[in-house]
């Protein structure tokens, strides 16, 4: 059997790296935390860029980590077909590094928000959402101050037309409303795909909703992309 090892890239200030490793381990996926300066292991079969506050959110959240040497490696393995997931700060890093479109910036409230949200699965035909049905409503936690998705209008139209939006913030019944939009994200977008289906980012935390005893299990489906 070929060893499957997902690299969880730790920067100074990452704080969801252990959660990600534990959640993947719970699903039977071997994962190891990799210090960014050490680079990706040769046998990397998947990459998680975890949440946190890399580089203290200096300049913009994710801006510094996105330009670190390890992210050039992540872009290279992504180009070769390795699945890459960015969560929260990892999502900010993903957009800043050009892996995924748009940008995540200051919440509409101008505050850090830590709460549970509902998400509607917009496209179930991806590795990250294959465990769900299109239109299904899942519940995940968010914890961010800069999670408002911004993208140019014409780019948003392209994303919609190409079915690149993974999740949108909605209410418990699946209605995508402004009231259910926790941070003012454009078109309620909570997660998007990169140019190819095996690269994705989202602001909510699937790894914090993957252990039955802690926070529910709705997030497991996202992580099953690494199985």
């Amino acid at each position, binding site marked *: 059997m070929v060893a499957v090892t997902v690299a969880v890239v730790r920067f100074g200030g990452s704080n969801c790296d252990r959660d990600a490793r534990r959640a993947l381990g719970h699903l039977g996926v071997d994962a190891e935390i990799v210090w960014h300066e050490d680079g990706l292991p040769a046998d990397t079969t998947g990459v998680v860029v975890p949440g946190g506050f890399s580089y203290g959110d200096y*300049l*913009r959240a994710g*801006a510094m980590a996105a*330009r670190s040497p390890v992210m050039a490696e992540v872009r290279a393995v992504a180009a070769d077909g390795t699945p890459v997931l960015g969560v929260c700060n990892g999502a900010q890093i993903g*957009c*800043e590094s050009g892996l995924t*479109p*748009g*940008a995540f*910036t*200051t*919440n*509409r*409230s*101008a505050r850090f928000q830590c709460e549970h949200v509902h998400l509607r699965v917009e496209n179930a035909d991806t590795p990250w959402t294959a465990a769900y049905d299109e239109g299904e409503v899942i519940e995940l936690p968010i914890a961010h101050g800069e999670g*408002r998705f*911004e*993208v*140019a209008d014409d780019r948003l139209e392209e994303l919609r037309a190409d079915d690149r939006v993974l999740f949108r913030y909605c209410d418990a019944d699946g209605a995508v409303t402004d009231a259910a939009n926790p941070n*003012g994200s454009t078109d309620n977008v909570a997660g998007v795909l990169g140019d190819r289906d095996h690269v994705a980012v989202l602001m909510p935390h699937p790894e914090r909703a993957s252990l039955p005893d802690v926070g529910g299990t709705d997030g497991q489906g996202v992580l099953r992309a690494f199985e």
Partner: protein
Amino acid sequence: MTAYTATVTVRLKRGVLDPEAETTQQALERLGFDLEDLRSADRFEVDLEADDAAAAEDRATEMAERLLANPTIHDYDVEVAEA
């Protein structure tokens, strides 16, 4: 080579919500000030050596493109002066 200071000003594009600026405006109004609008921007002063002002501006522009600004949400301008 001549010493220059390139000033890079990075601001949100028109139409992009700026919650921090809105909060700042509200705080000013709470202090009794009367104002119509408020916009914030980041300013970076970069000291560098270049053959001429155009070369200094080119380099500072590339800095803005590659790091200081995020083209999805920001506009920027660059001004160069001899240090």
